[in-house]
């Protein structure tokens, strides 16, 4: 982890689940990252603007409320358009409506261009380890 240990963080769409977001911010900071936390109800544009402005290494998208499938589609494309096509995109939470197998969900979001997809209940520590790995490789 050399350069851009800056992470843009937010909960996408019309989603207001704030608790996990507050915890992620804290734990990322504790782990030495710079965090740009956009809070809840964040649009794709807000994510990208923040990432461009801060020259972030990664965007962490949360979606808890079930509309993740609709809300998250197209973010990778917009990143490319904004010239940050290579930025790391992580996504986690309760990504789809209803209880579905995580394999299905992972496939869906991989296809949308997300680098790492986390099932409900993932502890932040797990993803932070991945982030360190991905940023230094």
């Amino acid at each position, binding site marked *: 982890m050399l350069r851009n240990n800056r992470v843009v963080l937010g909960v996408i769409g019309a*989603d207001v689940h704030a608790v996990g977001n507050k915890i992620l911010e804290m734990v990322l900071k504790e782990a030495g990252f710079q965090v740009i936390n956009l809070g809840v109800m964040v649009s794709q544009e807000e994510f990208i603007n923040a990432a461009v402005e801060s020259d972030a290494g990664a965007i962490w998208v949360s979606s808890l409320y*079930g509309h993740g499938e609709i809300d998250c589609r197209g973010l990778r494309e917009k990143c490319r358009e904004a010239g940050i096509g290579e930025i790391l995109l992580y996504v986690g939470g309760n990504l*789809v409506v209803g209880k579905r197998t995580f394999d299905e969900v992972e496939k869906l979001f991989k296809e949308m261009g997300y680098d790492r997809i986390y099932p409900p209940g993932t502890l932040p520590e797990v993803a932070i380890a991945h982030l360190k790995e991905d940023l230094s490789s």
Partner: protein
Amino acid sequence: MNPKEELQNRRWDDSRFVAERGAVLTQWPTGVEVDLADAFAFHRALPESKRAYHKLRMGYEKDYIFLQPRAGVALLSEHLILLAKLEEEGRADFLPTTIDSYTRQNRYEEAQKGIKESKLAGRSLLNGFPAVNYGVANCRKIVEAAGVPVQIRHGTPDARLLAEITLAAGFSDFEGGGISYNIPYARDIPLDLSISHWQYVDRLCGAYAENDIIINREMFGPLTGTLVPPCISHAIGIIEALLAAEQGVKSITIGYGQGGNLVQDTAALRSLARLGRTYLERAGFGDVLLTTVFHQWMGGFPQDEARAMGVIAWGAATAALGGVNKVIAKTPHEALGIPTARANIAGLLCTRQVISMLEAQKSLQAEGLEEEEAIIEREVGEIISRVLELGEGDLARGVVRSFEAGVLDIPFAPSSWTRGSVIPVRDQDGAIRILRFGGLPFSPETRGFHRSRVEQRGRSEKREPGFRMVIDDIYAISKGRLVGKPR
């Protein structure tokens, strides 16, 4: 808010209501379907068993605990099937229609897209039922098909159009309030605006009531569902009840979300009913039917379904021992996603089993209960007095100023209109106490009480109470405990 009108806790003039109504009903094409005369006739034709107020009153008199699930899917046809199952197999006493999150944010175009994509995908891509898009005639199919009252449950800061459409469709119960459906559910909607919008909703219900159709209004007690101290949710629920009563609402339910500690929860339920009634009476609303609702644990759930059933059953036991008029049941799928009908039925039946097994034991009196009730009552008293002071006698104004001052504050909320400086934490017994008071207007005795409880835990865990402890508490139930363990 209409800039011409300053926020006040005063019954709206008809002229103001009528003027605003015109704008509301044109927010989306289905608004034209609303016709009050027709709506009243529809409600009047409904049997009492399908009208929330009548059923609540009956249960209240018989001391019966009703059960209600949460449920809502994108497509009407599927929603009807879902509700039928919950009523027949789950024996729900009240049915819900939970609204999707786009509608909650008045993003009707996106909701429309969600309906379309759901039809294509053959499964619901929305997290609730988009009632505004469906309109009055379609929504009536829900009320007609149900054998019990149906309530709209959502989380909408501006629910004016939603209320117009669904009440006209015969729904007789409507959840939400200007505080409880803003601060936990939005990022930057000004509080005076949401309160004004909810005065509209309450005035609409008042208009129904003046035509002898009593709509029940339920306040959303759990707020963020995450370690909310009872005094905060009680104060807010009671304030919302007072605001609603002022607009002419005649049936009000105030709520409380399970904390997990039996003594605290029992004290909370008992004091909620008592305080609610006292404040309403004092304000001259003794004719309002005041009932209470209990939400099984609203924070993060364990993923394992059997463990989730344990949490659900403990909530049921608490409801039975504490005493309440209605329980909103959780499901074993809580941690994962919107539940299937099956999971929802499981939550209901498990809850019913425990409640009826404990019915005979509701007189259980635990040691420390009276003390706990007294504390909650004192705290609520301290908060509400200060709110009224800040409002210079006007409750609505007081609320806005109190949120600015941190006198009212909701922990972990997404809204920029709450300070977020109150930080709760569990004590050694798992009761929710306050670690940082922010701007809460507490007396030295109240502060001392919280401090001593929190310190006691700190000593027993040999660590300084702080944010780590709070995070441990947030995760605790999902990891199988009540009090977060040091890692």
